[in-house]
């Protein structure tokens, strides 16, 4: 988690306007799930990976590791779609196997569907990774502010973001303190100890609230309102680049993609 953030904060693309990056991630992402085309997806994947790695300066090894994380979920879900379970053999199955009363089969249509799904998903993830690895949460927040998201929502997102780390740190130290006193030997002990961590964190919510309230009021009078003091400008050339890439993807889809 901190690793993703670390790359975002040190990204050479960090000072590009977040709206531009959000749009640059979202357009291919949306085209991707709209077209549902293996070739188009692979094309988008290629563009995103290249841009993230080369312009975003993400080490290939790290990117590869990140890709492997969702692949496990993806594989299991794709397998579920691939396999059909019936009581009697199916016609037109290209693979069939019987375990006890159940017939497991793979249909030709399923293979295509599964392959498409796999590539569309993986390619969508590359779009998400572009955004995550080049844009900090604080900049996403700045983007949301530009998009006129309600202030309450912005405030909540900002507060939650700020205090996630405080709570993560305390849960980590409590966990260590419990381990030091042998609180995580068996499953039951662990569950009990985790219950204690959760309770302690909840108590912390109220403890911190008192201090936070004072701190906020010492510097304002209307309660907390997120201040995002970032100044980034839009760039026309980048918008043209985004448009070109989008057109390229669409063109690819209706030529190479369809032909394939």
């Amino acid at each position: 988690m901190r690793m993703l953030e670390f790359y975002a904060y040190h990204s050479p693309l960090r000072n590009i306007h977040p709206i531009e990056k959000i749009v640059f991630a979202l357009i291919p992402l949306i085209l991707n799930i709209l077209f549902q085309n293996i070739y188009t997806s692979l094309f988008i994947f290629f563009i995103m990976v290249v841009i993230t790695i080369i312009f975003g300066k993400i080490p290939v090894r790290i990117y590869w590791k990140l890709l492997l994380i969702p692949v496990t979920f993806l594989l299991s879900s794709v397998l579920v779609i691939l396999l059909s379970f019936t009581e009697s053999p199916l016609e037109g199955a290209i693979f069939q196997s019987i375990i006890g009363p159940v017939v497991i089969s793979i249909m030709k249509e399923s293979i295509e569907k599964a392959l498409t799904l796999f590539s569309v998903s993986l390619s969508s993830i590359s779009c998400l990774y572009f955004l995550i690895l080049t844009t900090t949460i604080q900049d996403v927040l700045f983007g949301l502010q530009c998009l006129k998201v309600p202030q309450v929502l912005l405030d909540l997102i900002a507060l939650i973001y700020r205090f996630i780390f405080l709570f993560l740190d305390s849960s980590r130290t409590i966990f260590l303190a419990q381990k030091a006193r042998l609180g995580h030997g068996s499953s039951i002990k662990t569950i009990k100890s985790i219950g204690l961590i959760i309770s302690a964190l909840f108590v912390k919510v109220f403890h911190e609230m008192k201090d936070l309230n004072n701190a906020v009021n010492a510097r304002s009078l209307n309660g907390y309102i997120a201040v995002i003091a970032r100044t980034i400008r839009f760039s026309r050339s980048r918008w043209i680049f985004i448009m070109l890439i989008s057109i390229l993807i669409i063109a690819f889809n209706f030529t190479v993609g369809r032909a394939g």
Partner: protein
Amino acid sequence: MSTTIFELSEVYYRYEDGTEALKNINLRIERGKKIALLGSNGAGKSTLLLHLNGLLKPTSGTICIDGQPLTYSRKELINLRRRVGIVFQNPETQLFNGTVRDDICYGPYNLKLPERERKTLIEKAIILTDVGELLDKPIHFLSGGQKKRVSIAGVLAMDPEVILFDEPTASLDIYYTKKIRKLLDELHRDGRTLILSTHDIDFAYEWADEVIVMHQSEVLFQGNFSQLFEEHKDIITKANLETSIIFEIAQILKNGGVNLNTIDYRSKEQLLEILKDYLLKVTI
């Protein structure tokens, strides 16, 4: 303008559950002073500080600022919180806005200062606290000492004439403690009034012009350190304090007949130097 900035008379503060956090506080605080607030944990130091910028309102009694009793109207509070900044003990909760820059800008933006003034103030705060390199970092990337400096920057950016510090050097290492001390000196040179609570008696003795001792919600003493250490040993015992070793050395030297008139009583380095010279002289 008078030199008295705060005047508290018969201030009481009771929590909702009935415990008294301040009892009959009478204080007069002069402009431009460096004041140390001493006392055990739970003696009421933080509660007192929270009263000085209107975050808490006395249950009874009055607080005057520049001779005017506080009425706690909105306008007055905006003004008060701009004039009196507070640096809390725990920077974790004091820093509540995303990045260092966002946090420093929080006060000036919320107080709706005109843009040019805002910019100048923010820049000045950044330079004074030397946090220029941290500006784009999120708060949770910072070390404890860095957090402390950023939290001071956030207060300075509002250009307060009084700054209250709640244990500014607690759990800081020697390096950052020295940095904070230097910063305190600079802030005072700019003409600010500083009030600081601490458990570090040696530091308080070296730094402060005046000392306030609190114990069990009451103020036991207001005055200067030599009065406290020489004439009020009972208060030191009662409030669970100690005498500063620096003062003790100075006393011993003085009683031993060393002439200390020309030097700074409060400088550890100077005293040790004098002691060294003196001993060499007498033994030769």
